[in-house]
């Protein structure tokens, strides 16, 4: 099990979350602010099976839109290993 922490712009939040949910990923959204994207941002926590990490990242890649400004990141992704996972 891995956890993807994705920091994306607010304007992409809905599209990315819907895309992930449609592909059976479970997403937790947290409103955040900060300097990664310097404006309203959303942090997504996505728990995924090891072999599904690439698929999830691909969805985020496709669903994030460019703001048109050069050098502005659309998303920042961290993939962490999860030592223990259970749903209660």
């Amino acid at each position, binding site marked *: 099990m891995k956890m993807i922490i994705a920091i994306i712009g607010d304007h992409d939040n809905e599209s990315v979350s819907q895309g992930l949910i449609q592909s059976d990923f479970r997403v937790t959204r947290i409103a*955040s*602010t900060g300097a990664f994207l310097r404006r309203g941002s959303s942090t997504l926590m996505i728990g995924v099976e090891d072999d599904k990490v690439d698929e999830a990242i691909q969805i985020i890649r496709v669903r994030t839109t460019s703001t048109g400004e050069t050098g502005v990141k659309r998303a920042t992704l961290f993939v962490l290993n999860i030592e223990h996972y259970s749903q209660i």
Partner: protein
Amino acid sequence: MNEKYLKVVRLPDMERGAERIEPSVDRLMFAVVQAQDVRKASRALNAAGLLVAQLTSTGGFLGRRNVTLLIGMRGNQEELAVKLIHDKCRQRVEYVSTPLEGAPLPIPVATPVTVGGATVFTFMVEHYEEI
């Protein structure tokens, strides 16, 4: 440095061949800090070139508002980040009112409680990507 941690960054306005090599982010730090310390702490971290995202949260013994900072960094920056957070997030003593034990009326008594500092967790990042 291990080659695995190096990535090539091509800036949009750079000429061909002018590539800058910089080590990639391999650690993610969660720092839970008190609301009143956030601005100072984020400013210091930003000034040190660290990437910071803020999540508002609540918790701790008094259930107060606090902020969770997500900080992406390389291994050799961890010590610096902890030092900056330590400098900016002081432990302080606050007083909460508790009723006096055994009194017939609820007489409030100021009880000192030590709050703050910061709580820091660091995770190893298996994969880091900017899109």
